[in-house]
């Protein structure tokens, strides 16, 4: 096979997407107006397809902290955490994350992807067994694969399936790693974490939870689903990202295991990349304070989430099983999903369109997300736009 021949499939995919009236992977945010508004296609648009759950991307204190760090420490670190890339602020953020979770150890990575990759490749190796949810994020799968461990998949959100696989592993189960997410990002469904913790208690193993979409969203103090489900003590590794509720970019892992400190010497995705730039660290630290100090942001987020979920369910749309700030709407027909998504965009509402094979069930899906910063009027406009597109494009049979 010639070197570039492998791109034929990608070329076909691109041609299909470019033939659509609007390419869902080619949307350009022309101007950002606020945490919830932007100019898209020359149109003032409500952003209802982001991960900005607490609306902190325009937090005044975070912006001021970022500007100050930029002026004082420069645009970038230009080096690895293991060389010239560890500034005092990186260590302070790690200490703050550890204190936030009331755990002794924390480690900061340059992206959320690198956090999953970096922890998994450090933790796992050839001969180890890892149990991975069927709908786990690509970064989790990539980390497991890159580690060389034996990967056993179990059906999405299926504690019995997990238990069966651990049972079949026999003694290996004692050292197996169970890898799941908290809130899943496409359908907005939550992992049965308490059941997983019970399975772990019965068969052994270690529990690794990716809280990328749950941090700041769940728990009295915003520490994610592990907090709201009361299993923080049973969780061995919590991984998260700065690029969602914290509104910047980067990732982290916290743990009660002292070996986490040794990951720095064993994790190639941690070692062989530049550390997060000072302004990113500064805005992240400020946003983390908002999560801890302003539970009213979470209250507002959930008011918005409940309002939107209830209204969309009332339209007869098929939604994910749990009320959450992420609402996945399943469509039986790809073209209907596409027309609805485009209709929403033309009405000034940006959502995410997920076409086969990217959707978890292999179908087509529109993902809507709300933030604490959406106003009542914006939520109403999202709902009325959905009413219009459903009436126009999907009446009498849009759902699966």
């Amino acid at each position, binding site marked *: 096979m010639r070197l570039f021949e492998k791109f034929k499939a990608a070329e076909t995919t691109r041609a299909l997407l470019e033939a659509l009236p609007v390419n869902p992977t080619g949307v350009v945010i022309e101007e950002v107006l606020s945490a919830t508004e932007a100019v898209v296609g020359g149109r003032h648009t409500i952003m209802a397809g982001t991960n900005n759950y607490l609306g902190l991307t325009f937090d005044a204190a975070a912006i001021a902290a970022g500007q100050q760090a930029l002026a004082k420490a420069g645009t970038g670190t230009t080096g690895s955490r293991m060389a010239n890339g560890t500034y005092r602020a990186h260590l302070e953020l790690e200490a703050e994350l550890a204190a936030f979770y009331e755990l002794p150890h924390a480690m900061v990575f340059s992206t959320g992807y690198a956090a999953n990759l970096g922890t998994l490749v450090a933790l796992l190796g050839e001969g180890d067994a890892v149990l991975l949810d069927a*709908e786990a994020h690509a970064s989790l799968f990539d980390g497991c*694969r890159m580690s060389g461990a034996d990967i056993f*998949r179990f*059906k999405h959100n299926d504690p019995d399936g997990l238990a069966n*696989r651990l049972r*079949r592993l026999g003694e290996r189960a004692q050292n197996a790693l169970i890898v799941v997410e908290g809130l899943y990002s496409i359908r907005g469904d939550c992992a049965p974490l308490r059941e997983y913790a019970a399975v772990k208690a019965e068969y052994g193993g270690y529990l690794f939870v990716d809280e990328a979409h749950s941090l700041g969203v769940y728990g009295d103090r915003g520490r994610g689903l592990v907090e709201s489900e009361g299993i923080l003590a049973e969780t061995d590794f919590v991984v998260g990202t700065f690029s969602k509720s914290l509104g910047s970019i980067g990732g982290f892992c916290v743990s009660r295991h002292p070996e986490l400190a040794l990951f720095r010497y064993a994790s190639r995705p941690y070692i062989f990349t530049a550390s997060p730039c000072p302004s990113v660290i500064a805005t992240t630290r400020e946003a983390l304070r908002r999560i801890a100090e302003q539970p009213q942001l979470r209250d507002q987020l959930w008011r918005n989430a409940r309002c939107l979920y209830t209204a969309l369910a009332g339209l007869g749309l098929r939604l994910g099983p749990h009320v959450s700030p992420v609402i996945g709407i399943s469509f039986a027909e790809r073209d209907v999903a596409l027309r609805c998504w485009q209709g929403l965009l033309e009405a000034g509402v940006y959502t995410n369109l997920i076409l086969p094979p990217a959707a978890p069930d*292999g179908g087509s899906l529109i993902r809507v997300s709300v933030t604490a910063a959406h106003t009542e009027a914006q939520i109403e406009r999202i709902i009325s736009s959905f009413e219009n597109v459903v009436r126009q494009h999907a009446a009498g049979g849009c759902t699966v």
Partner: protein
Amino acid sequence: MKLDHSAIVEELIRLLEAALGRRQAMSADTALIADLGLESIQVIEYLCEVEDRFDLAIDEDTLADVQTVGDLAAVVQRLLNG
């Protein structure tokens, strides 16, 4: 009870029909992806059904060379026979 290759193929086809939600002519030579058009998530869920049916743990690497129902039956047979 030991199952021979053809009995495993038959059972794998039965599970495939259940996963696809339709009856379809299949044999040991049927390719899971190329012939049936299974999406990756459907393949994972199907394999979970196979593991549960035969009470096996099949890691992803073991499946690297599996393309057809017959290939999968050979893996299942090998694991069943220890």
